[in-house]
Structure formats: C-alpha cells, structure tokens
C-alpha cells in the first residue's frame, strides 16, 4: 500500500480521490485528456431503471464560489448503461468503479442494483437518495430516515457488493438519517449531495434554472460539507466518503481530518477538467507540508480542545 492508498469498504484505492457522480459521466470524456486510471475510482453518472431526458433547459446557474445544476438524472437507463456505456468505460478505466443509482421507488432502486450486480467492473454501489432535481411532491427520499433505510435494505438484498448511501444536506438532522442507514446495513455513507438553491435572472425576472430550484455545489458549500462529514463520521462506524466543494489537495486533507476515508470531487471537474489529476499529483506535497506521513493517519484526525 502506498502513501496515498486507503481502503473503502474492503476495496483498496490507490488514493482517496473519487470524481463525484454527474460530473464525470462514464469517464471516457476525461480519458481523452488524461489517463483516468490515476484516480482512486470514480462514481459514474446516476443511473435509473428507465431512460431519462432530464429537466428542461437552462439547467445551470452561476453563484459566488459555486453553481446550481438541474440536470435531473439524465441517463439512458440501466440497460443502455450496461450495453453502451460500460463497454466504453471499460476501454479507458481498469479499476473497480462506483455505480451511482437512483430510483423513484424502493423497487426501482432494487431493480437497478440487481441489473448492475453482475457487472464485474462495479466495486461499490452508491445509492443516491438525495438528488434535489427529481423530487415528486417536494421531498426527497433522503430527507426521511425510514425511507432511506428502506432503500438500503432493498439494495442490500440484491447485491453482495458494498452499498454506500449518498445523503442530502437539506435536512434538520443528518446524523439520525446516517445512523438509520447504517442500521439498515449500509456499508458506507457518502455526503454531501447538493444544497437546494435558486437564482433569479434580474433581466427576465425568471428563475435562471428552468426547473426553478436546483442543486448548489462548489467551494461555497465546503464548510457545510465539512461540518456534516464531521458529524456523521463521529456518529457511525462505517466509512464516510466526504464531498462538497472539494477543489484542492488542501481541501482533501481537511475533509479527511473531519472523518472522510475517501473524498469526492464534483463541481471542480466542470471548471477544471484536470482537477482530480492535479489534486492527486499535489497530495504528496500537501502531506509533506502538514507533516503527514501516510494519508491514513489523518482520517478522522481532527483534534479537540
């Protein structure tokens, strides 16, 4: 094991860096500009049972130190993912990948996980109970501890692969939801998904995002992400994938001190396509700077008093 390698739910990663779902497609766009096998792994584009066109345009808005997106889980559906996307991914990425899955009912989650379970490329499932852009009736599953746990149980029932649950930050009590997922058998927790945000175009007086509200991410949300990763990592026994606004090796160190075993990088990929490669390259220098020998030393290493 190298200085940067960590173990996530029993699978070793060469480094803790994981491009976040929805910012990295199925990898091959980025493989055109760098060898993506330098990554720890990546979480592929959120996949649902049926194909989804996603939300109307515009789907993106500028914010101070961040952005709002409202893609709405556009994806070709799990069967096309298996037939068209995974073969293309396989050509450029040769490590276990994280399969990000979504659904509109407990059965749909189970269906997608079951369909993907036979794919040998998949190392982990990341179960997204928190996409802010596809809610029906105003609430996401991930804002309810019981509903989240139901999804975890259903996915665990159809796969032996580790199941990581991706939680929404738009909740009063993130810890109770994380614990409920752990009790239901989740092998890890990833957080945070995007904050629910909104911008208004002052010229047209219309919401910038066609779907009115969308998912807010970028460096602006980093302090909220660090706080929630800290709260959850100190409350659960399973590993935490920390994400939300991470855009530098310095941020990676901070997220791991807060309690993350691995670190997702999202919006940064969209403004700097080389972001993950550069973070990985820069990590040894930053570890040296803070006197850290092996990166595992700092997981949950925040000191008190």
């Amino acid at each position, binding site marked *: 094991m190298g200085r940067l390698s960590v173990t996530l739910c029993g699978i070793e990663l060469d480094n803790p860096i994981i491009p976040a779902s929805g910012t990295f497609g199925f990898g091959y766009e980025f493989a055109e500009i760098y060898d993506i096998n330098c990554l720890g792994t990546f979480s592929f584009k959120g996949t649902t049972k049926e194909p989804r066109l996603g939300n109307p345009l*515009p*789907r993106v808005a500028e914010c101070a130190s961040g952005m709002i997106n409202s893609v709405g889980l556009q994806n070709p559906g799990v069967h096309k993912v298996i037939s068209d996307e995974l073969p293309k991914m396989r050509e450029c990425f040769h490590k276990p990948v994280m399969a990000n899955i979504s659904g509109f009912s407990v059965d749909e989650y189970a269906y997608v996980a079951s369909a993907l379970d036979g794919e040998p490329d998949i190392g982990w499932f990341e179960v997204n109970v928190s996409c802010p852009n596809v809610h029906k009736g105003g609430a996401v599953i991930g804002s309810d501890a019981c509903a989240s746990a139901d999804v975890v149980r259903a996915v665990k029932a159809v796969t032996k692969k580790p199941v990581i649950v991706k939680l929404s930050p738009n909740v009063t009590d993130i810890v109770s939801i994380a614990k409920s997922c752990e009790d239901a058998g989740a092998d890890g927790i990833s957080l945070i998904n995007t904050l629910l945000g909104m911008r208004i175009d002052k010229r047209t007086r219309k919401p910038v995002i066609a779907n009115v509200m969308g998912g807010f991410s970028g460096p602006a949300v980093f302090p909220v992400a660090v706080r929630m990763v800290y709260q959850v990592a100190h409350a659960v026994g399973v590993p935490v994938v920390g994400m939300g606004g991470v855009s530098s090796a310095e941020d990676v160190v901070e997220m791991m001190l807060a309690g993350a075993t691995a670190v997702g990088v999202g919006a940064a990929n*969209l*403004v700097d*396509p080389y972001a993950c490669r550069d973070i990985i390259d820069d990590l040894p220098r930053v570890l040296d700077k803070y006197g850290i020998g092996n990166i595992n030393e700092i997981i949950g290493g925040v000191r008190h008093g």
Partner: protein
Amino acid sequence: MREIILTVARNEKIARGTYRMELSGDVSDITSPGQFINIKLDGFFLRRPISVSDVDSGAGVMTIIYKVVGAGTEYMATLEKGARLDVLSGLGNGFDADACKTDALLVGGGAGAAPLYMLAKALTARGVRVSCALGFGAAEEIFLADELRALGCDVKIATVDGSAGVKGFVTDAMMGDENYLYVCGPEPMMKAVYKKSRADGQFSFESRMGCGFGACLCCTCKTVTGYKRICKDGPVLNREEILWDD
C-alpha cells in the same frame, strides 16, 4: 480540448454592448469556424463560453466577439491588454465549411454573428459565393458587416427598429432563394430561419453551459438522432438533426 493561457492583446467596444477581444497565444486547437473557447474569469465560478470569430495562425491571435449580458461579460469588458486568461480551447464541433459547394447564405442574429466571419473566410477561400443576412436590434448594434463585405460577401442587414437596412427580423433580409444555410444566433431567430427556408444547412446553438466539454449534461437537447450535448456534439447541428421544442 486543451487548457491554455491566452493574453489579451486588444479589447474594445465595437457596437452597443458588443466587444471584440484579441487573444494572443497558441491558437492551434481552433480548427473549424464555429468552435468556441471557455474562459475562466477571476471571481466567477463557471467559465464563460464564447465562440471564436477569427484565428490568425501566423500571428498566433484569435478574435472573439461578445455581448455584455451579465456580470461575467461585464467583467470581461474591463480586461486590459496584457491580462492573462485561463482558457479551454478547441471546444465544439464547429461548422463544416466543405459541406457547401456553391452558394452559401450565412445568417446571423446579434452577437451570434461572430463566428460567421471565420466561416466566410473559409468559404470564400474555397471559392464559394457567400451572402450574409445579419439581424440586429438597431443600427448602433451592427458589427462585422464591413469586414464581411471586405471579404467579398454580399451583406444584407435587418434591424428591429428599422434604423438600418430592412426593418424587421433577419428573415426579412432573406431572399428565399437560398442554396445552403449557415445559421448562428438565438434559438427563436434560428427557428424562424428554419421555417422560412427549406434549404439544407447547419445551425449553431447557444446554451447556458456548465463545463463546455460534455461532462455535465447541462446543455442537452433532443435531436432526431438522440440526445446531444450542445457543447460537445454541437454547437453546430445539421438541419436534418434538429427537433424544435414546440
């Protein structure tokens, strides 16, 4: 796609709300008219996608023309000579100039007209006879007309307020005898052109973009041949691919 640093060589207002910026550096990634660059601006999170209006490979200069429409472009207008910009260059498919063998009509609306200059150069160099129809809000907004005429193009203008050329939309400056169309501008204008003329051609789409290189799916549109990303599979679509929302 490549990330490069370009230096502002010139940045000047050329029409109401419209600026021309010359950027010097490695311009080799721009291989077709209609491609764009995505510019990182200090103090802004998302890059700003701006189409390339001209490239001088010998001098290592590319020209972009942009309209001030928000805080990002307001900031761009303040950049001075010597400012260094982090740019993703060589984005998008661009126009296929070879697709037109004889007569081409280039149709531009507002700032959308910018890439037509590089396209007209490519077409005239191949001996294609080029006409242009340009639509603007008012006479003060007109740009590129003289430069296109200098290339030998026949240029017709329409203005909404009638202060120059034909009063009306750019479709009012079209003759209806088009052989092949290259169209660039806001979607409603392009749709009107599409409906007015049955000629074959290529349409370059504008969109709010996230990444500009196909990763985020923020600029998806539905086409006859499936979902396309305007930034990566476009911005130029062939007429027969287009499915307008109704």
